[in-house]
Structure formats: C-alpha cells, structure tokens
C-alpha cells in the first residue's frame, strides 16, 4: 500500500505541492490527473524517491520511500530516454541490473518480454536505429522487467500507434491482474475511464478531486437523461433534463405522455468533462 501523507514541496517561492494526501491500495490502477504544471511530475518524483519532500512523508508498505526501494518500483517518465549508442540487449540488461536483478535473471526475463512483444530480432540494434515507437516498446520493457510491485507510468500511450497503444493497455491490465499496483498519469481521459479504479486530480499543487471513478462520475451527474421514443414507427432520441424536485419516476411519467419510451438512461459526465469543469472552477 502506498500512502502519501501531507506531502509538500517548494521550489524557491513556488509551492509545487501543498499538503497532498492520498492512498493507493495494492492491486489497483490509480489515475493521477491534472493540467500541465500542476505538480504531477514532482509528486511522481517523490514517490520514486528521486526527490525528497520538504514536509510530510511517502510510505510504501509502511516504510519511507527512498532509492533503496527502487527495485520494487518501475518508472516510465513522460520524457522517454535511452542510451542512443547502446544496443537493445545491452540497454535492457544494464537497466535491469541497476534495478538489482542478476545478469541471469535479467537475461531470462528479457527473453520473455522480447518474445511477447515479438522483437527478439532487434536485440543487436542500436537504440538510435529504432523508430520512436520501437524505442518506446524497449523503454516499456526496461520499466517492467524487474517485476516491480509499484508501476508508475507517465503518459504511457503517447508515441504509440492505436495497435501498439492497445497492446500496452492489455499489458498494463495483465500486470495489474498479476498483482502490480499501477499509478497512471495521463491526459487521455478515455483511458482513465477504461483502466482506473480511483483517481486524484491535482491542480496548482493541491488535490481538487479524489476517489472512485464511478462514484465521482455519479457525484457529478447533472440530471441529464437520454430517452428514445417510438413515435409513428420512428425512433427519436432526445436529451432531457430532470428538474431538481423530480424523481426518476416523475420524469418518466412526464416523458411517457409524449410517446412510447423504448430506452431511458442517465448520462453520466465523462471524466473529460469533470476534468475541465473542476480545473476551471
């Protein structure tokens, strides 16, 4: 379990993080959202043990996070980077060993991943010879090869074509099912809805929204409903708003007068709408 407890961090006069608290349960996929410059990267660096908070603490399974925990954490930074002159094989081996794997372990895991991504033939290629998407795959492997318990992914889908993005999405889900806790930072709200159970929305260094994705969407409902009538054998779709004092049944009764209702469902706001509304207010 990852617990962030009242973490603050300032750079000069700028307060990048202001008493941030959150709890990430084991085995969940946690979405870390926020506009650019909100403080996400700083928070991610603190969770990684790269930077220390000015006050507050970040605990992984009850222990303060430092670099000693690095073998349990996998981090895919937003700005991808690999040693350009190294071959794919050397690169993966080096980073895996830096995460504390033995050479033999690293070699075996690498073989599995290369097979899974069908890139065994790239091993001898230098990073600079790879296309951006290919390099991204290698980077993803270097992030997860040491079987981290906590995986921090910053914009994991950027730079991938739809097919590869889907492949990465499936890998994230698979790793999550195997017990890996995932922190996902992304601007792609669609994937947040698809993957995340919980989210925290950060703005100006503070958490402005936090909780279960479905609950949040329900909390933000704006009494919008989608109704489909059958009028003269024709299907008509309409968006209607429920009055505050009305119940659903009241609304249905009111609508039933217009014609035969064939479908009725509440329109929950998308995370995208919630994001924009919350940040702008």
């Amino acid at each position, binding site marked *: 379990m990852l617990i962030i407890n009242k973490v603050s961090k300032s750079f000069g006069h700028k307060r990048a993080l202001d008493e941030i608290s959150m709890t990430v349960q084991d085995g969940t996929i946690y979405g870390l959202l926020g506009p650019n410059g909100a403080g996400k990267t700083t928070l991610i660096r603190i969770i990684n043990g*790269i930077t220390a908070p000015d006050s507050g603490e970040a605990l992984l399974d009850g222990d303060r996070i430092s670099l000693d925990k690095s073998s349990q954490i996998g981090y895919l930074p937003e700005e991808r980077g690999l040693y350009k002159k*190294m071959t794919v094989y050397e690169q993966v081996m080096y980073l895996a060993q830096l995460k504390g794997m033995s050479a033999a372990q690293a070699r075996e895991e690498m073989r599995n991943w290369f097979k899974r991504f069908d890139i065994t033939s790239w091993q001898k290629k230098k990073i600079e010879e790879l296309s951006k998407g290919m390099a991204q795959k290698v980077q993803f492997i270097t992030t997860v090869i040491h079987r981290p318990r906590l995986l921090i992914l910053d914009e994991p889908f950027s730079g991938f074509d739809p097919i590869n993005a889907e492949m990465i999405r499936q890998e994230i889900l698979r790793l999550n099912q195997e017990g890996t806790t995932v922190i996902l930072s992304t601007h792609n709200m669609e994937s947040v809805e698809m993957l995340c159970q919980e989210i925290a929305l950060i703005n100006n260094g503070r958490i402005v929204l936090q909780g279960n994705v479905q609950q949040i969407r329900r909390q933000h409902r704006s009494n919008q409903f989608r109704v489909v009538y059958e009028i003269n054998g024709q299907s008509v779709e309409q968006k209607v708003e429920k009055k505050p004092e009305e119940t659903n049944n009241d609304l249905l009764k009111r609508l039933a007068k217009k014609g035969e209702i064939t479908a009725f469902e509440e329109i929950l706001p998308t995370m995208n709408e919630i994001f924009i509304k919350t940040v702008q207010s």
Partner: protein
Amino acid sequence: MNSKIPLIIGHEYRTRVMKRSFLIITLLTPILIVASIALPVVLITSQSDDAQKSIAVIDKSGLYQPAFTDSENYTFLFLDEDLQQARNEHPEVAGFLYITGDLTDSLQSVTFYSEKQPNTETVPYLRRQLSDYVNQQRIASYNIPHLEEIIAQSKQRVNINTIKWEKDGSEHITSSDITELSGLLIAMLIFMFIFMYGGQVMQGVVQEKSSRIMEVMISSVRPFELMMGKIIGIALVGLTQVMMWVIIGGIAFAVITPFVMPETQALSADAMNQMASNPEYSEIQEIFIALMGFDFLKIIVLFILYFIGGYLLYASLFAAVGSVVDNETDSQQFTLPISIPIMIAMFVAIQATHSPNSALAVWCSYIPFTSPIVMLVRVPYDVAWWEIAISMFILYLSFIGTTWLSGKIYRTGILMYGKKPSWKEIWKWIKY
C-alpha cells in the same frame, strides 16, 4: 543495499573501450607521434628521387667545372652555349646551372633554371658542391701551408656531458635538453588528458541529460553514485590508454635500442660516460643515452598518481558543468572557470622547465589546481619526496572537496531543464 557504482563503472568503461575509435586512437597516437618525428628525418636522409638526374652546367667564367663530378644521383653536362639555345637542344636535362661570373667577386652570379619545380635536394646539393669548391679555392689562395687542416680542426664541435651524482655514488648521464623536453612533454600529456577525459565526463552527463535517460537512471541509482561511476569509469579508460602506451613505448624502446646502440649491453656509468664523451655519437644516440638515465618507473608512477588526482579534481567539476546545461554549446560559459587554472598551470609548467625551483613553480606545484601539471615538470629535476607527498596530499584532499561541491550542483542540475541557471542559483544549490 549494495552499491551500484561497480555496475555503472563497468558500463561507462565498456561502452568507451569497446568502441573501435578507442583502439584506433590508442594505437595511432604513438605511431603518429613517432611518425611526425621520424618522417622528416627519413625524408631528408633517404634518396627519395632514385632516378639519376642530369644537370647542364653553363659556366661563363670557365672556373667551376672541377666543382662538379658525377655522383650516384647527378650527372653533369658542361655546355658552352647560350641559355636559350641549350634549353632547346637539351630537353632531357633536369635543369641548367647558369654561372655568369667569378663567384669570389659576386656570390650572386649563379642561377638555376628548370622546367619543373626542382626537388628539395637538388639545389642544396649544387650549392654545397659549389660552396665547398669556392671555399677550397679561397683557402688555397692564402698560400698558408696546412691551412685546410687547421680550419677543419678549429671547427671541432664541443660536447658538454652532464653527469648527475646519485646518493649512492654512482653516476648518471643526463641531458638537460632532454630533461627539459621530457618534462614539458609529460606536462602536455597531463594537460591533454585532464581536458580530454574531463571533457568526456561533461559530454557524458550532457548526453544523459539531453537524451532524457537521466530520469530513468536516477530512479534506480543515487545521483552521486551515477556521477562517481562515470568519473571512475572514464578514469579507467584513461589509465588503460596510458598502460597501452607504456607497453607500446616499452616494446618500441626495447626493439629500437639495439639498432641505435649496438654495444650497450652492459650499461655501466663508465661505459656510458665513454660513449657520451665520444663525439662520434649521433644525436639520436645521445637521446637514447639520456633516456636510459631516466628513472622511468618513478616518472610513470608519479604520472599516473598525478593524472588520477588531477583528473578526479577536475572531472567532478566538469560533471557539475555538464549537469547545469542542456546542450554542449551552452557549456562554454561554465567551463571557463575550470579551464583557466589548467591554462595557467600549463604556462607555469613551460616556465618551470627553465627554472624548476622558482617560487612560482614551487607554489604552483602545491596548489591542487595546478600541481598535477607543474609538479610533473619539476620531478625530472629531482624534487624531494616530501614535497611530492605534500603536494599529492593537498591534491587528493581537494579532490574530495570539489567532488562534494560538484555532487551538490549535479544533484539539482540534472533535473533542471530549460533555462540556464545563473551563478547565484548554482550557489543556492550548493548551500541547499
């Protein structure tokens, strides 16, 4: 948790040493140095133009025909016609030496005409032949008996042998020229190494930053480990290079020595003394005698110790510079304060080759930023061991200081992108 420095050292070392360019440069540099010294000698001494040349001599004075006798390379053709006419009639000759009058009256009355640019040997050869002949004639004209021999004797070249008394009473032949030169060479080498390998450290850091691998790296290792791993790894690359050169140099020396000095199997000081005082020995042999008088082991050991100390002192500063900039072009502003002391050291070192015990040289051989270069120039002149010990102690102590300082800058700098920090900001990082 185990330190990851060995892994990083291994990576930094391997990626550099395994490069083809490393092997090429390491092998090529000594060859280039030797070649740049040997080539001119070879070019001058060897008969590069094997074909025999014929030279037409048109001597209007009729005095100098005896000066030219056919040799291995030149045949002479004596003509008594007009220059233009001769040119038309004898297209086969390499050139025309046209003597218009008595050379004792005017030394300017000789001209060499040719269709092609004459090669470097021809004209000097002709001049030598002609001058010798003119000199002989002049000497003869004084009518003094044995004058020629007297002059030859008066031209004796004097050699001063320098012999250094060792504590144990033995004698060593030295050559102050060689000592001076070798001191300078060693200083140059250290200077080059600090800049070259320090620069590599900086470049490495900048590359890690600009390729954005830095963030991945420091999520696995401490910034200080990353910095030290890189510095040590590159130091080992440098030492590998030095070792290879020592081995190549040693083999070359062992192979060449018997050729240059056939009879120096037993190197008693006496024997060398005799050799050195023998004016028949060539300059190359003198150099070898002087080289044999060197305590190579001492110089190599001190070179390596000062290289390590000097390199470590500067490398961490170079790493700090690399960490504060985003690309190499921005680095110049920050490398300046580092390169100035190295430059000063080099100037003092050049001075010190003439006066190794001047106050400036002595002080600079203690100051850590200049000592690796300056002290090594003084070492061939026999510096007391305690002086070396003190200078070395200060150097290694300062290395800890600069590394600590650089570590602080590095730690913050590697995560900063975008704007170049000001000196004031860097100062804040250090205090932070």
